[in-house]
């Protein structure tokens, strides 16, 4: 039966190859990338184990293993719906004993690019102990237990949380939280390593240097010896304990590792039993909004209808509201990013950057509408109404947000003399990129996460189309922004107030001209390609 599940999973994987060429290429690239990374890590670890310091190997395997387990356990919570090919609910009508189902799903869970990479990596790095056969054996057992911890723990958590994960409200909250977390990873890592360097060296002014690695080892060893006793790291630290000859420690960690696996199995078993007899249902309590909302506050015309609908979606659809929630974080991120180099350049560039990214965010609006766009087609909404309608909320909100970002950044950097040129740049870029988006979204439609899906999930096989469309949009925006950039940079270099004022005037006037022309062009393309646009979104996977 377990073999049957494996065959099923392999068939499903094989069939994705048949669906589209791009998907196949994407899969191959992902596989090559994973194999390359695994190979590099394995070779480095073996080299360290054979030629270098075996103590390092023990620490590296334990800490790396902990990160792997954390990844396996947490990522599915945020990136929901990523792999539902073997959803247990689909097997609920077959009379499969639960024990068999569990074993089958567990093994099948390993048949994926991340699964295979984990197996290869776990077994591969154990070979670092090749000089000590006894330790090697213990380490291999540890690797197998570690893999089991990853898979079983991951399944236990997702199955246990399934009732929560399936509710729309929760998914929307988690989506935004995950997006913000993902944005913060860079600065957090920078901040942590800074902190570690400071605490190790005791002297922040000293620039670190060659000795850093050696000095960090005791800290990492401390952390590793601690996490080695937790469910996350117990299995991975078995080899290290054997190497150190710590037999009591080995027995203790083995007990922790086995208990973790047993508990995960038990939790999964119970949760699955419960979910199989209780099919997924909506949480019943639907969201409500009183009255007409934005629709009651705009003039009654097709243009303003589209504007009100777009504004509603900006607030209510996590695919849009997620990107709004990130904007206040950008100055913070840029602040930390710039801190390591000691210059405020990154921070000061935030304002213009926000203007550009805001305008860019509506560049695939029809893709986001998905087939709901059929209403526009059957109503015969004309291009001008559709294009302007989608641009209006951006033109109402964008200038305020980019101006606020500029003010915050010059305030933090204490560079008030740059306010005017930066403001001009931000407004100019906002207007130009909004215009380019209005033109591009009538021509370059590419698949994105469907309504209700996690924005972190990008549809398979769409990478190339996304890359081409976004790249093209970027190049065109950059080219059309050159006049504004030239004036703005001149103003910053010269530092004169007059040039600053000129930047604002040029930015706004030039931006408006480009916007009007681009919208007109976009409207014409839209009118000509209306049914084709609908057919395009209908063909999305």
């Amino acid at each position, binding site marked *: 039966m377990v073999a049957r599940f494996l065959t099923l999973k392999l068939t499903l994987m094989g069939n994705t190859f048949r669906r589209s060429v791009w998907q196949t290429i994407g899969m191959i690239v992902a596989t090559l990338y994973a194999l390359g990374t695994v190979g590099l890590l394995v070779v480095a670890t073996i080299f360290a184990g054979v030629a270098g310091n075996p103590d390092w190997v023990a620490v590296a395997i334990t800490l790396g293993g902990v990160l792997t387990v954390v990844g396996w356990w947490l990522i599915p919570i945020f990136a929901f719906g990523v792999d539902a090919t073997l959803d247990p609910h689909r097997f609920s009508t077959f009379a499969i004993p639960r024990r068999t189902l569990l074993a089958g799903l567990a093994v099948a869970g390993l048949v994926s690019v991340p699964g295979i990479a984990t197996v290869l990596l776990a077994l591969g790095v154990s070979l670092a102990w090749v000089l000590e056969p006894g330790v090697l054996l213990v380490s291999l057992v540890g690797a197998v237990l570690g893999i089991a911890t990853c898979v079983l723990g991951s399944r236990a958590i997702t199955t246990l949380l399934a009732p929560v994960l399936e509710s729309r409200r929760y998914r929307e909250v988690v989506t935004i939280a995950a997006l913000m977390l993902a944005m913060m990873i860079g600065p957090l890592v920078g901040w942590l390593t800074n902190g570690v360097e400071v605490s190790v060296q005791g002297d922040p002014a000293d620039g670190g240097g060659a000795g850093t690695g050696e000095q960090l080892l005791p800290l990492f060893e401390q952390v590793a010896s601690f996490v080695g006793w937790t469910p996350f790291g117990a299995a991975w630290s078995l080899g290290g304990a054997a190497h150190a000859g710590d037999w009591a420690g080995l027995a203790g960690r083995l007990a922790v590792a086995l208990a973790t696996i047993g508990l995960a199995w038990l939790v999964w078993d119970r949760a699955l039993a419960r979910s199989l007899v209780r099919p997924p249902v909506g949480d019943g309590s*639907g*969201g409500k909004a009183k009255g007409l909302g934005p*629709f009651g506050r705009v003039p*009654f015309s097709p243009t303003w*209808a*589209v504007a009100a*609908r777009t504004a*509603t979606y900006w607030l209510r659809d996590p695919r849009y509201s997620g990107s709004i929630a990130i904007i206040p974080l950008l100055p913070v991120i840029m602040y930390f990013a710039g801190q390591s180099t000691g210059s405020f350049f990154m921070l000061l560039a935030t304002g213009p950057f926000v203007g550009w990214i805001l305008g860019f965010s509506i560049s695939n609006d029809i893709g986001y509408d998905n087939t709901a766009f059929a209403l526009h087609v059957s109503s015969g909404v004309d291009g001008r109404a559709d294009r302007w309608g989608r641009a209006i909320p951006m033109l109402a909100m964008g200038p305020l947000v980019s101006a606020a970002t500029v003010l915050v950044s010059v305030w933090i950097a204490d560079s008030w003399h740059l306010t005017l040129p930066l403001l001009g740049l931000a407004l100019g870029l906002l207007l130009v990129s909004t215009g380019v988006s209005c033109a591009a979204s009538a021509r370059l439609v590419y698949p994105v996460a469907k309504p209700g899906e996690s924005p972190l999930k990008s549809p398979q096989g769409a990478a190339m189309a996304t890359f081409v469309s976004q790249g093209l949009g970027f190049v065109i925006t950059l080219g059309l922004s050159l006049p504004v950039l030239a004036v703005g940079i001149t103003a910053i270099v010269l530092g004169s107030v007059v040039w600053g004022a000129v930047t604002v005037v040029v930015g706004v006037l030039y931006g408006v001209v480009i916007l009007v022309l681009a919208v007109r062009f976009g409207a014409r393309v839209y009118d000509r390609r209306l049914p084709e646009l609908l057919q395009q979104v209908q063909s999305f996977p």
Partner: protein
Amino acid sequence: MSDGTTTLGAMTTPVDPNPPGSPGTQGAQELPPHDPSAALSVRGLWKRFGQKIAVSGVSLDVPAGSFYGLVGPNGAGKTTMLSMATGLLRPDFGTAWVQGVDLWARPDEAKATLGVLPDGVRLFDRLTGRQLLTYAGMLRGMDKDTVVDRTNDLLQTFDLVADADTFVVDYSAGMTKKIALGSAMIHAPRTLVLDEPFEAVDPVSAANIRDILKSYVAGGGTVIVSSHVMDLVQRMCDHVAVIAAGQVLAAGTVDEVRGEQSLEDRFVDLVGGRQHSEGLSWLRGS
């Protein structure tokens, strides 16, 4: 509504399926001219998706004021044909006239008199039911008072008043169908084209919708519904066309098409595919 002579001409609905052997457009010249008085008149519609020809040379006249049923097995090309006749999908060949207006030459004018309920498309479901109806009305360029009045009427009629402020994404399948139907009707179109309007709708709501559609037809409107529930079409419609494999097999008044048989038997005769074997002998109780 329409005068006697043209109605007579339309009632006999010329059926002209292209001979299967001629996949080109050469046949287009031989097609009879479109009927300007018909609510919907299509000539020689073709559509191909990749290797599959979904619709091959469909010509059909839907007389004004009729309740027209479009029946056919799954995958017969009903949805593709209706999409091409309502401006949602550009045909490879052929065109459609809506009350004498060439849809693909003057789409805005033709679409203004059409109300469309497409099958298998999403709605703007982050809006509440009331907002969605309002949005549909505004997109049609209607003024505020009319939109507000008609939105209230539609919510009342479709029994959605209690859920007017709930997001459409949280609606059940039947409620979603009803709100989509409301969005298709809000601008009081002369012709309603409804693709599978009764799917997932509960019997009480379905009966209500039938009454609404009947009185709409009595008032001079035209309704075109696609369905694969023969019984429903036989009871509800006065005209019917049978479509299979992208071609019209029969069209006309319901009585003309079914003759002495029930519509369902006639349909099976036309489409074929019934198996008269013993079938799954092992399934009978042991």
